[in-house]
């Protein structure tokens, strides 16, 4: 089961994950919206799989469908990891 993870750790996993999916690392900042980045629902499911693999935090496709920004994703993972 997940132990406490820091905001920085989550941010790194998400940034590395999106970079692996083909996105420009420099553009992956908390304020960036997934719409602007052109990250779609398929990418978000892959991102959720990476988060689960790396951090042990399970996210459903309904959870990630609600996300609007990179910061939203980081906050959601931090909150889930702490619960």
């Amino acid at each position, binding site marked *: 089961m997940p132990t406490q993870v820091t905001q920085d750790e989550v941010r790194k996993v998400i940034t590395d994950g999106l970079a692996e*999916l*083909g*996105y420009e690392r420099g553009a992956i900042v908390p304020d960036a919206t997934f719409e602007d980045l*052109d990250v779609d629902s*398929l990418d978000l*499911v*892959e991102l959720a*799989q990476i988060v*689960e*693999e790396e951090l042990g935090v399970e996210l459903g496709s309904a959870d990630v469908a609600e996300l609007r920004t990179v910061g939203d994703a980081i906050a959601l993972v931090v909150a889930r990891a702490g619960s």
Partner: protein
Amino acid sequence: MTRRVVVTGTGAVTPLGVGAVKLAERWAAGECAISDGAARASEFDPLEFLSAKEARRSDRFTQFAIAAADEALAAAGWTPELPYEGGRVACIVGTGIGGLGSLEAQEAVLRERGPRAVSPLAVPLMMGNAAPAAVAMRHGLRGQTYGVVSACAAGAHAIGAAARMIESGEADAAVTGGAEAAICEVATAAFAAMGATSPSGISRPFDARRDGFVIGEGAGMLVLEEAEAAAARGAPVLAEVLGYAATSDAHHLTAPEPSGREAARAIALALADAGLGPGDVDYVNAHGTSTPLNDRSETEAIKQVLGDRAYEVPVSSTKSAIGHLLGAAGAAEAIATIEALRRRVVPPTLGYEEPDPELDLDYVPGRARTLEPRANGAGDRFVALSNSFGFGGHNAVLCLGVPAR
């Protein structure tokens, strides 16, 4: 008024390289792209055509189709802007198997890491219609778009279907062809298990020693346009799709009907569709797989239709140079056929050295030769047949013409 269909652009990714010209020139020069029992498109780098994200979202067969279509559209002068309203352009692409490599990879993920780890891209990667979907999206083609699945006849079926759409007026133009990337463990083992592939790893169609096909990979894509519309925009006309026909053996799961009867009927119907007869044929680009059964029944079929003319017409197989591209074969070979007519060069059946006593046509051994105009010909154009026959008994034949200028 009959609508005619012309080819205004071609593109190919084959084991002989990236580009239709490389396919034509290297085959005619006698280069064989087969090594270690397979013919890989080893010069292809997807990142020359696609972003990292696009490449992740397309199986290798789709990547081949995208690259070949880019070349074909550029050759036709379709870039940067389509010369037709997107809704009037069809996109029909054949494949034998689709994204088998992606399926194989995700199967391994499932077994090793469980169902939650299976990629959400798995279905869009492996679906048989992924190539036409990707090409249509890339270029804004909003007419009829679908994949054609008929094993090794898929490329020819796709071109035939697209040509019919233009003839009937359902579309004014089409981007069509075939794509395949099945050199992976499952397919290699499966083709070997059924005895279809060559144990010697040599593709030598029509030779007495032939022992099966060599698996290849790649794509061939063509831009087809209604002839008057193409002329109106001053398009470069490479060839005309003069005729097309398809039949079915209804005989056996994999083996061709031994007499070649239904293959012959497809050839005859394609010629009739073109309004031509045996005396008009200058060249036959054979399906010529290098399997004992195909090459025999295909020879029978050619003889049934062309009669005495069969012994005068050069017959050669592209598979001697690039192996068997399965669902892409018919499309890559249609392009090779067009280039042969355009260049007036009959490319050879490589590796053909020991004649099979039962197979007695002119298979163009040794080296390429000049395409001679028919002694009795009208002289206004060169005409070729391109045969494609698939497991399941599917027979598809294209009759292609190039103006003699």
